[in-house]
């Protein structure tokens, strides 16, 4: 399904109007656009609304930039974040032209750490978000579709996830099962953050199951599976996508925290949290740049994702119209 609008559809082709309007007639042209809008798909409409949200577009732009940094940055930056040349100054050098973000105690370039760290941090946030989305939609759809005892059992499991302080479980899981590997941390974050999505999907299912259009589809004999995937899920997907952006943002922060405590990514790899791991001891020396730049990278990326989530919330809510 294309998120980008078809330009011909946007220009307002005379789809259903019987009397073709003259281009000079402004009022008629407005009515024409109105007609053309009706022929736009759900995603095209959403994209039109999203584009109007200035902060969301800025956020999206920055996020795309971060993804590009994550992919190509390590190739361009001349320093290896794991190369330990030994510092010429105890506590690392302050920012300079050669090292725009300074160096750390071991003489490693902080800028290289931030650029390389983007890869693991964004990957953990993004992939764990996808896992959470898939598991959450699956569990929520099963619970909402079958109802009864299946629903009851699954929702008690979801309740349990909500009751256990998540951070406590993540620390234990990362330390005992994570083994410093990116893949295991992605799995841990993904498999611990789906319950909110399951709850959202189930709630939409419960309300949509009783709606008129589902009733109508059932009346004409549409199969249950088709009702689920064609009629209910597309209508329930808006809040899910918004929740997924929030999960991505929070998982990036969680990874940083877990790695900061040395329970996450092992020291032979670089993530933003990892770059912060030894920063606290340096703060006492007045060396702010170790802690400042990786943290800023996290904060700005998370803010960008939150803006995108905000824009999506407005764009995907079917009640808001252009």
């Amino acid at each position, binding site marked *: 399904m294309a998120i980008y609008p078809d330009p011909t559809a946007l220009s307002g082709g005379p789809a259903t109007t019987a009397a073709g309007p003259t281009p000079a007639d402004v009022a008629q042209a407005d009515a024409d656009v109105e007609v053309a809008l009706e022929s736009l798909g759900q995603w095209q409409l959403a994209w039109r609304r999203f584009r109007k949200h200035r902060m969301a577009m800025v956020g999206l732009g920055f996020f795309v930039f971060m993804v590009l940094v994550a992919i190509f940055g390590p190739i361009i930056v001349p320093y290896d974040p794991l190369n330990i040349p030994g510092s010429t100054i105890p506590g690392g050098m302050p920012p300079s032209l050669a090292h725009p973000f300074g160096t750390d105690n071991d003489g490693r370039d902080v800028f290289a750490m931030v650029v390389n760290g983007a890869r693991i941090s964004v990957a953990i946030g993004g992939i764990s978000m996808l896992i959470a989305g898939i598991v959450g939609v699956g569990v929520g759809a099963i619970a909402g579709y079958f109802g009864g005892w299946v629903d009851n059992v699954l929702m*008690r*499991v979801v*309740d*349990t996830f*909500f*009751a*256990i*302080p*998540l*951070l*406590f*479980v993540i*620390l*234990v*899981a990362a*330390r*005992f*099962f994570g083994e410093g590997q990116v893949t295991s941390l992605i799995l841990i974050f993904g498999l611990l953050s789906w319950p909110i999505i399951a709850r959202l999907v189930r709630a939409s299912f419960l309300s949509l199951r009783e709606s008129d259009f589902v009733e109508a589809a059932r009346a004409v004999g549409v199969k249950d599976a088709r009702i689920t995937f064609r009629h209910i899920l597309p209508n329930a997907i808006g809040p899910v996508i918004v929740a997924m952006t929030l999960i991505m*943002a929070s998982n990036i*922060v969680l990874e*940083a*925290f877990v790695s*900061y*405590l040395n*329970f996450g990514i092992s020291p032979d790899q670089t993530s933003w949290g990892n770059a*912060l791991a030894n*920063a*606290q001891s340096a*703060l*006492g020396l*007045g060396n*702010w740049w170790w*802690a*400042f730049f990786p*943290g800023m990278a*996290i*904060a*700005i990326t*998370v*803010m960008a994702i*939150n*803006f995108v989530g905000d824009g999506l919330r407005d764009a995907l809510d079917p009640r808001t119209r252009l």
Partner: protein
Amino acid sequence: MTQYIVRRVIQAIPVLFLISVVSFVLMMQAPGGPAAQFNQNPHISPAQINKWLADWCLVRQPTVMDTVREYLGWLGVWNCTGGSFLSAHGLPNFLPAFLGGGTNGILHGDFGYSIETGQPVLQMILARLPATLILMGTAFVLWATIAILAGVLAAVKRYSFFDQSVTFVSYVFYSLPTFWLGLILIFIFGVTLRWFPVQGIVNVRNTPAPFATSAYWAAFAANPLPYLYDIGAHLVLPVVTLIAVSIAGDSRFVRSAMLDSLHQDYVRTARAKGISERQVIVRHAFRNAMLPILTNLALEIAFLFSGAIVTETVFSWPGMGRLYYDGVNARDYFLLMGILLIGSVLVVVMNLVADIAYAIADPRIRYD
């Protein structure tokens, strides 16, 4: 209503059961496991280890049935020393001790002993409780006050400069990693400006004994002012770190709840009657907006509990969060299970209280 409360309590039981299973499995299935941790400790003799293992039904190389027995023993349903579901008195083991039940397991308040220190887990947790309560209590009061004030003012003066600044500041703070904010505050106010202490809860040089010992409380009671001042100074940075991020989210929540309420018909009616704007806002709009806000407040206590672990590790605050962090480092399984379980039960109880309070406070909602 009674029926609703009873049903919510019954619904909580399977959740509590699942929580205990998750806590148990998480710890027992961890590589190494508690038995391996014992073997590492040179202060424990083999005889002690064997008694320890027997007391907790722990078996080296357990089968599935052994694991189930371990779980039931930890829970207190299974009598480990007797090897049956019955206590030494011949009654079901899960009954309270004074009714003839057993004494082992969490149902009887026995959370086991710390592998690291050998102390009873419950005693260790209780010793750390005051510090966590001081931190969370102060944070909660400040946070609720500021979030509600900022949110209500922003809603009343919608689109004003104040509203826009609150929105902007919330956006910025909402995206900050809590622990990183703590690091930056340490650098600015602790290291550079030297306004506030950055570690611990008391200045150990000025106290006769470590915090929360009886000697400390005795000195505290004799002359409380300097001690209160000491704790207060240590509280500033951790509390700011703990609440800054959540205030950002919650002032937005309060603002939208208040906006909802300001657009209701009864507010227009109140204005039409000629009541002063202040009365309209405080007595009509705000009182109705309080409902969702109060529910949210109760739920956020659970969030604070999670946030405590972040703040306490960054600021070396001697509370439960720090204890948990140290426990993870030392693989102190019984301690971890105890904190995880107590924390989760706290959350379940808070949710239950919030739901019931909501049902009582809002007569429009019927549950049946």
